[in-house]
Structures are given as C-alpha cells and as structure tokens.
C-alpha cells in the first residue's frame, strides 16, 4: 500500500505537469478548440505512463512474509512472528517441539503487533510537488485570459441624401397624384409616398430604410392593383354570365365579358333607350327574361360571397373535427394521415380566404351596379320606363368603374415614380458625394438662385455665370460610363453677375464684378495712351417683334442663364417633353436609356 501510494505521488507530477503545461499554452496562445485537441490528445502519454507505473507496483509479486518481517523488524521481535508463520505452514506431524514452541511464541506476540506504526504510510516528498502542480492547475483553470476582439465599429447612421431639387420634384409628383385621386387606397399610397419623400428630406432615413420602404410601398401597390383588377374582372364576369341569358342584355354582357366598359355602358344605355321607347319595346317574355337576368346578375356577387362563406364554414368544421381526432390519437403516436388531411384543409382554407378577400372587393366594387340592376329588375315588373332609368344609372356605374381604371393608372404612375426614385438613388449612390454636390449646385442654378456664400476661395470654380470662362458648360449628372449631358452655355451675353468671375473670391451678388476691359492705364507705362486713328460708329441691331413672344431657342438660352423658370420656359419644356414622352412610348428605346431621358427632363423641368 505504501509502495503504491509512493509510486502514485512519484508519478502524479507527470500528468499534472503536462496538464499545467498544456493549459498554460492553451490559455496563453488562446488556442481554439481544434488546435487544443492535439495538445490534450498528447496528454494521454503521461497519463498512460502514470497508470502503467502505478499498475506495475500494484500488481508486482511481493516477497514472502514481507509484511511480517517488517513487523518483526519494527518491534524488534527477531523474526519470531515470521518464523512462527513459516513453521505453521509445516505439516503438524513434521513439526519439531522447538517449531511448535516457536509458533506458540509467535502467537503470543501477535497481540503486541502494531501494524499501523510498523508499516506507516509516510507522506512522500513528491506529494508536495504533486499538490503544488494540482494547485497550479486549479489556479490556471480559474485564470481568465482576456481575448481582445476587434469589435466592428457601431453602425453609423448615414442618412440618405437627395438634392433639394429632386425632393421638390417628388413632392410635386405626390401633390399631383393626390390631386388627381379620390380613391382612398390610392390616396393612402400617395400619402405613404409623400411621407417617404418628407423623411428623406428631413434626413430621417438611411439608404437601406429608404429602399425598404420603397419596396414595401411598391409591393403593396402592386398587390392592390392586382387584387382590384382581379376582383373587378371577376365581378364583371359574373354579371356578364347572368346578362348573357337575356337576348336584350347580350351586347352589354359581351362587352363586360371582354372588359370593354365603354361599350358595355353604351350597350346598357341603348337598352334603356329601347325600354323607354314604347314603339320597339320588347315582348313580355323577353322583358321577363331580362328581369330574371338582371335580378340574378345583381345577386351574383353576393351569392358568390355567400357560397365562399359556406365553404369556409364547412372547412373550419372539418378542421375542428380533424384536430379533435388528432388530440384523441396523440397517445397512440404519429398520425400521418391526419396530419396530411390537416395540411390539406389548411391549404384550402388559405385559398378560400384569398377568394373571399377577392369576392369582398368585387362585391364592394360592384355594389352600386348590383343595386341598380336589382332596382331595374324590380321596376321592370311595374314600369319599363322606370327600369330604363335604373339601367342608365347602371351604365353610369360602369362609367364610374371605367374611371376607376384611371385610378389604377394613377397607381401605376406612382409605381413608375417609385421606380424612377429608386433608379435615381441607385445612380446617386454610384456617383458619391461629388455628384450630390454638383446636383445641389445645379438645383440652385436651375431655380435661378445665386451661389451666394457657397464659393470656394481659390478653387477656380466660380459660381457666377457672367463671363463663364471658368465654368465651362453645364454638365447634368454623370451617367454610367462616360454618359453625361452637357447644356451649352454661351460665353458672352448678359449674365446676372452673381458669381465669382475670377473664381478666386467668394461668390457674391455684385453686378459690377466680373471680367471687363479696364479704363486708364498702368501708371508704370511710359508714353501716351494709344490713340486710334480710325473712327468707329456703334450700331444697335434689334429683331422685329412678332408679338408671339420669344423664340424657343431664346427661351432655352435664357433658361440656361437664368434658371428654368418662367412661363415661356414652361411652355417650351412642355412641348419638348410631350415629344420626348411620345418617342419613349412609341419608339424602341433600350429600357435603361429611358431613365436617362426622363431624368434629363426631370432636371430641366420648369421650377416655380
């Protein structure tokens, strides 16, 4: 036992020492799990050495009587106990009297033996090393090695910046759409668009949020458009189906079926006229058929909605029943059939929900028309004339529905503006801050504003237009690659003197500044001033006034110098834009270029 203990304490420092070393390395080098694995696996070697070493001592054959000899030696018994034990193994018959006496002597001594003291397990010196290593290991495991990780910088909020000019543009667009629309859904969309523009103007949104909100708005608009269109088409088809049943309303039914709402309106008006006109009034049977058709047509949307509701209720009942069955069978384990049926039920319910939504929209859209048709059917029983009036009102409703298509067009327009806005922002993102600065300057000049206070001393880029020698031509935006739009600016003419002619002074509004010939002479020069011999006469030539205002070219030149303001410019712009839009819609122009054309016209649009 003592030997085993001694060997344990002797060898224990080996695995402990290795563990301390490995842990130190792991913590000091901040090894990850994969790198640590090798070190810990190699630790098996000292562990095996420890186990084998201890095992060898534990299972090593011991000398005979080792324990009793140790006892005899400790007590000074001169091997009396050991000899007694040894003689006791001799067969009794072979024992001599002295052997027997020795055995009895040994037995008598046994009571005096004190094995605990005789073979005391002393604490080996190596135990201190093992304990020290153990403590070190514990201390190391408690040590926290700080891992300094470079944290990414906190996300900085970079607001999406749009030039004031563009913001004005989109504000105007929103106003225009708002004015044109009276559909609540469309108005909501316009309001959201307007809010988006305002948020951009107030720098409340970053690029990501702007694109996200544009995406949301676009998606909702598209969804609305599709739903409305589907619902209306469905309602009209229902009407057409019922009206087909009467020969009198067949023409209107065909037009409705083919979504020719104007024709349908016209057909209904004609039918109303026919009913009013007593001479060519249809027979009673035809009228009855018409009445039935009108009655059924007026109920088609409602019936459809009711039918959907009924189916939904049935499906919900089925779902309840399936869920109950599933709960009942929950203890029995998996129920694949029930799960499949439930999934199918859920899918059908979702489909019906969509259909219901569509039916409700359709019902809403057709509600007035349905009422008129129902009234017409009722009145037809009493008075055909009265029924004719109802039909005329129905025709008006169809007219209204046709107008609703215009609302959709407005939504489409809004969608288009959103797409333009997105493209604009994308381009702006590519151009960076320089382009933004250019656009801001351009916006100011387009409004005819001066560059007051915005001059940059010494940069050679005066804001003024007078002289314009350092300005160069106006350059509108920087398209992809080398695409750019230049607006030729005359080098002479009457400028407004609002810039920095020499480009080395802050912009100002002094009309006298700017390059011009001087008077007097350099006092350093000797001699008289040059005296020309020839005499010249100043002649002023003026064009004849036609009374029709300035020519387009003059207006454009003026706009280039003063900004895109004024009624004359507005007229010229409208002419050009109309032509351009027509060309865009009729000619085959690569879709990517359409943006640049439209963008060009956006930029040169008349400012208030």
């Amino acid at each position, binding site marked *: 036992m003592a030997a085993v203990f001694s060997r344990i304490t002797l060898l224990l420092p080996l695995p402990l020492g290795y563990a301390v070393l490995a842990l130190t390395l792991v913590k000091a080098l901040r090894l990850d799990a994969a790198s640590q694995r090798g070190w810990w696996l190699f630790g098996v070697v000292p562990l095996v050495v420890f186990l084998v070493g201890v095992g060898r001592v534990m299972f090593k054959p011991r000398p005979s009587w080792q324990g009793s000899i140790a006892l005899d030696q400790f007590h000074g018994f001169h*091997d009396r106990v050991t000899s007694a034990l040894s003689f006791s193994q001799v067969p009794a018959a072979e024992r001599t009297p002295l052997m027997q006496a020795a055995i009895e002597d040994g037995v008598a001594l046994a009571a005096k033996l004190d094995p605990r003291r005789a073979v005391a397990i002393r604490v080996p010196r190596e135990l201190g090393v093992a304990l020290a290593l153990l403590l070190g290991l514990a201390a190391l495991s408690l040590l926290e090695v700080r891992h300094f990780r470079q944290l990414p910088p906190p996300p900085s909020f970079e607001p999406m910046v749009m030039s004031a000019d563009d913001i004005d543009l989109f504000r105007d667009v929103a106003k225009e759409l708002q004015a044109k629309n009276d559909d609540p859904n469309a108005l909501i969309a316009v309001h959201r668009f307007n809010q988006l523009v305002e948020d951009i103007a107030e720098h409340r949104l970053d690029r990501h949020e702007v694109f996200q909100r544009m995406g949301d708005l676009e998606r909702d608009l598209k969804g609305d458009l599709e739903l409305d269109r589907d619902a209306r088409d469905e309602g009209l088809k229902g009407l057409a189906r019922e009206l087909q049943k009467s020969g009198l309303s067949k023409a209107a039914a065909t037009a409705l079926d083919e979504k020719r709402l104007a024709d349908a309106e016209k057909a209904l008006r004609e039918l109303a006229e026919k009913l009013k006109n007593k001479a060519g009034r249809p027979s009673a049977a035809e009228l009855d058929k018409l009445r039935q058709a009108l009655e059924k047509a007026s109920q088609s949307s409602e019936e459809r909605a009711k039918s959907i509701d009924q189916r939904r209720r049935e499906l919900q009942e089925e779902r309840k029943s399936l869920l109950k069955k599933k709960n009942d069978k929950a203890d029995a384990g998996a129920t694949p059939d029930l799960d499949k049926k439930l999934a199918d039920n859920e899918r059908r319910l979702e489909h019906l929900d969509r259909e219901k939504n569509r039916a409700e929209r359709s019902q809403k859209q057709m509600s007035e028309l349905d009422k008129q048709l129902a009234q017409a059917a009722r009145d037809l029983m009493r008075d055909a004339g009265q029924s004719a009036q109802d039909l005329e009102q129905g025709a008006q409703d169809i007219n209204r529905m046709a107008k609703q298509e215009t609302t959709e067009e407005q939504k489409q327009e809004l969608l288009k503006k959103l797409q333009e806005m997105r493209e604009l922002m994308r381009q702006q993102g590519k151009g960076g801050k320089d382009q933004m600065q250019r656009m801001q300057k351009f916006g100011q000049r387009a409004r005819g504003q001066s560059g007051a206070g915005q001059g940059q001393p010494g940069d050679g880029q005066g804001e003024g237009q007078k002289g314009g020698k350092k300005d160069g031509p106006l350059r509108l935006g920087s398209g992809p690659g080398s695409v750019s739009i230049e607006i030729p600016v005359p080098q002479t003419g009457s400028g407004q003197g609002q810039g920095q002619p020499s480009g080395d002074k802050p912009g100002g509004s002094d009309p006298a500044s700017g390059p011009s010939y001087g008077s007097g002479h350099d006092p350093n020069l000797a001699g008289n001033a040059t005296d020309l011999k020839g005499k010249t006469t100043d002649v002023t030539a003026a064009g004849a006034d036609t009374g029709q205002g300035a020519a387009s070219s003059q207006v454009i030149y003026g706009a280039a110098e003063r900004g895109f303001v004024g009624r004359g410019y507005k007229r010229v712009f409208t002419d050009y834009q109309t032509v351009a839009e027509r060309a865009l819609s009729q000619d085959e122009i690569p879709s990517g270029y359409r943006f640049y054309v439209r963008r060009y016209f956006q930029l040169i649009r008349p400012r208030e």
Partner: protein
Amino acid sequence: MTDAEQAREEVAEFQKRIGALREEIGRVIVGNRDVIDGVLSCMLGSSHALLEGVPGLGKTMLVRTLAGVLGLEFSRIQFTPDLMPADIIGTVVLEEGAGGARQLEFRRGPIFANIVLADEVNRATPKTQSALLEAMQEHRVTVGRTTHVIEEPYFVLATQNPLEMEGTYPLPEAQLDRFFYKLEVPFPSRDELHSIIDRTTSTQHAEVKRVLTRAQILEMQALVRRVPVARHVQDYAIRVLMATHPNGEEAPDLVKRFVRTGGSPRGAQAMLLGAKVRALFDGRFAASIDDVKATALAALRHRVLLSFEGEAEGVAPDRVINEILKKLPGSKE
C-alpha cells in the same frame, strides 16, 4: 508435559547454563563478551575458532579459562617453524613393557584433547598446519594404518598475530575454511585494562570452577542442531553468502570490485549454526535474520578473499561484508 513445553524448558536450561558459563569466564576474562560468545558459539556449533589479535590480549587465557569451566581436557600447542606434524599428532614409539616385551605404541600428541589451543598457528610450516586439517574436520587422526578417534567434544582454538608476518606461513584458504569463526580480539578499553591490571598484578588469582559436564556440553551441542530455521532466514544467509561472490546476483559494487572469491558453503553453515546458538543465548526457539547478520562477520571474514586491487586498496573483508549486510534487503520474492 508437551513437547513444546519440554523444548521450552530445554531452551531455558541452555540459557541458564550459558549464563553460568559466561559468569564463570567473566571472573577471569575481562570484557571481550563478543569474543567469548563467539568462542562458545564455535564450541556449541561443534566447530573451531580462529582468534586473531596482537599478543597479550588474553587469547590463551581465554582458552585456558574455557577449558577450566568446562572441565574438559585441554592442550596447548605453541606453533613454531620447526614444529613437526608428529609433534602435534603424536608418534609411534617402541616401548618396553613390564615383562620386558617391547612393542610399538602410539603416543598421542597434544591434538588429542577436547580443547586444543593452537597458539600462533601461522608460525608453523604448512606441513604441520595441514596436520590439523583431518583432526579439525574429521575429529580423528590417522597414523600409519591406524585411525584414532578424538573424543567429543573436540574444539580447536587457533590464534594468530596479525602484525608479525615475517617468518610466518599464512594459513591456506582450505585450512581457513575449516574454522567456524575468525574472531578478532580487540584491544581492551581503559576500564577493562584497569580490571586486567588489578587482577594480574596482585596476589589474587581467580580460580574458575567447572560449571558444565562433558555430557551437558554434548547435550547443548545437540540442542543447537535442533533449533529450527525458517525458510526466509536460511534464504537470507544464502543470499548473504552469494553476495560475497563478485558474480553474485545481489553482490554490491564493492564486492564486484575488490573480492576475488566469496565464501564457501561452510560460510552459510557457520552463519546459520551461529544464528541458532545466538537464538538459544537469547532464549528464542528459532534463528532470525538478525542472528544471521550478527554472525556474518565472524563467519565470513576469513572466507572472503580479496583481489589484488582490494589488497592494494587496503579494503578489509569486514567492510565488504558490512556493505553486503547494509545493501541486502531482509526479504526477496
């Protein structure tokens, strides 16, 4: 009375006799307890002892005293270079009888005694020394065609002076091996010298009385032989003996370096017999490892032959044996 009780009584009686013997010897011999015990062990082990010591340490006196207390026939032979074998064995002489008849008669030499003191045995020639061989080993002497048995107990005590080596004939190994123990007689201490002076320079002459009979001695010798030895004790003695050999399994480096030849089996016999005697001295019934250790020096020091290197280095056999005893564990698997 059981056998064990009887054995216990025998041992007690042995112890009592030894005590009386020691007491009686102690009246003449001052100190030298180990030497006295060694000599007694040799005698009780039915063997012989070689005493080595400078002159004047009382070696002869010890033997004479022993002979006196034992009441045994004692003879002393002073070995000299001209001493002939016949001088110690005896010789055949023509003797005329009372009737005038003459006949050859063997005259026994001094070797025919119970206790023989071979004083300064190394001074005699090897021829004479070898004359002791048969008597010591066989306890009989052959002269001509007649073998003469020496009466038991037979105990030869030889002495030799380790200093005066000139003109001496060191005992051959074969003869040394026949001595049970080689006992070194130490110089007495100051107190012991006082006692020696007091006893030898006054008119007082201590007379020893006989305390044991011959039969009792033989009885005691027989008891010694009957003392059992446990296997591990015997094994230890054998291991000690084997460790004296340079090629022995457990031989320490000192042995391997300085020993030419280790002890013969007689060495182990001497250790174990001596251990048995010691056990009986202590009133124990079996010999122990401690007993073996106590006897090892006396039993082996004349049997371990040093190599030339050992001789040159002045390594004493006692140092070699002590090294073995120190290194050898009490037990081995």
